[in-house]
């Protein structure tokens, strides 16, 4: 199992979520982060003084999937998150050793999200 961690633009999230859902990966988590990278900071002005905020709001997306599904997820993210401009973000893949579903207590890769056929089923 792997956790895919992506730092992306806010606008990119909704298309990614939609496609992942269609592909049978409904499960993921996001949070608000502030990132520093190659992107320039924002210059703010307050009562005559300037202050620069080097940190730009980004969305951090976390999604744990079976190792075999990693590339699908990464590709989906790359596809929708790219504008070609600085600040598009990065995607990292990290190892996960075990997974549990809280509701049932089950463990193992099976508890991860349904595969495409599940999505098809659910569409019914």
């Amino acid at each position, binding site marked *: 199992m792997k956790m895919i961690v992506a730092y992306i633009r806010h606008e990119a999230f909704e298309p990614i979520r*939609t496609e992942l859902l269609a592909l049978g990966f409904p499960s993921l988590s996001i949070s608000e982060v502030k990132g520093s990278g190659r*992107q*320039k900071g*924002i210059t703010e002005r307050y009562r005559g003084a300037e202050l620069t905020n080097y940190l730009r709001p980004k*969305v951090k997306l976390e999604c744990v999937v079976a190792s075999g599904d990693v590339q699908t997820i990464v590709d989906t993210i790359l596809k929708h998150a790219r504008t070609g401009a600085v*600040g598009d973000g990065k995607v990292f893949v990290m190892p996960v050793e075990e997974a549990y579903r809280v509701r049932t207590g089950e463990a193992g890769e099976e508890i991860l999200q349904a595969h495409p056929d599940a999505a098809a089923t659910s569409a019914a």
Partner: protein
Amino acid sequence: MSRSLAVRVLALAALTALVLPTAAFAQDVPIEDQVADLTSRVDTTWVIVAAVLVMFMQAGFAFLEIGFVRGKNAGSVIAKILTNFSISSIGWWIAGFAIAFGGGAKIAGDSGFLFGYGDTINESFAQGLYGDTVNGPFSAFFFFQFVFCAVSLAIVWGTTLERIKFIVYPIYGLVFSMLIYPLIAHWIFGGGILSTVGNGVQDFAGSTVVHLTGATGALAALLLLGPRKGKYGPDGKPRAIPGHNMPLFGLGVLILWLGWFGFNPGSTLGTGDGRFAEVVIVTNLAAAAGVIGAAVTIYLKQGKLDVGMCGNGAIAALVAITAPSGYVEFWAAPIIGVVAGVLVVVCVLAIDKKLDDPVGALSAHGVAGIWGTLACGIFTSPRLAEFNAIGDAGLVYSGSFKQLGVQFVGVAAAFTAVFVLSYITFAIIKATVGLRVEDEMEEAGLDITERGMYGYPEQFIPEPELVGYGAFPASRPPVVTGHTPIPTTTEVPA
């Protein structure tokens, strides 16, 4: 001058007077009548200004409550205050005014329903003052009395926040504005039964009629409603459920303080002798002392100066001075206020142990309302008892407990009547449409569940990054749309 230029000339004729001092109009009317008319206009102006200040107290109550509730219930307070003010506007017009001021019977008035210009009002207190026909000044009286009713109703809901069903508001609001409040107002303000106890119960602007009535309704509601989930632990110990916004709470308190300068001084119902200016000072001194009393008390109790308690101190003192504001001299005001300030802190802490009253309405309006009403029996000055021609001087002047006894009767009667009527009303509501939202709705908050939207609607929407602003090359490829597209289907496949 074409007919169209004559437009409003009549309505504005008064303004011409300065320029054309001997205008035809002025010549026709005897000077005494002109002065009498003008006196009525001045008094009407003051009463309307005062009423408008009191109307704005609705915003005061709204923001006091918004500050004290959790963010998930903040938007609902707005829907609530608009609905209640509206329902009671209509209810007061249909029947409330008639019962309160539409005749001199002991229990209730019986004319003035669906109040209209030119209507005849039955022989009564009001008739004695305004004649028996509805006109402009009479309208000012109607509206001033209405905003009092609306304040009283606003107080009721303080104990019920964050869990009551919305449908309860219009139902109880109608009963309250058409029956419960008008009865009490009639008994004390409208020449009814309590104005015949002794030389009359002294309640200048309504510590009992308005505030205790509201707080008593609040108590009845609370007993049937129960505490918010999580307020009391399994061991029965109270837990703090902090509100979400002290600045907006403060806005509420300051607006209420402002409104009270209409509430008490407006209850002179005119400008005679400039009495209302004295009432302004009395009101302000009491409120100031209330803040100080509450601040010192809470600081001594917990070593921190709780913002909410300072505000509660102001409100409690304002409530307490409401009844005596037209009866006491300046010196008594800070005393009445400081006692109210201390009382409200002590009572909020005590009541919280058993009853879940998120804004402290029982203490600030109930206990302080009782204290204020009784305070007349102690501090009323002989000159003002006489001036108002109601009741007698208080204990410190007369050495007699008589007026205190009368005041006690007033408090007890009002409390009992309101409690019984309200309890019955709420019990019927509970048995029929229900009083309380389901547990899941309470947990999720009334905003999303009953209003369909959070009070801070954006809060769960991922906000687009500050794209482009100085951060993109000029050749940046066009991005699809500004906002995260919002899909239109509703269900996520399980």
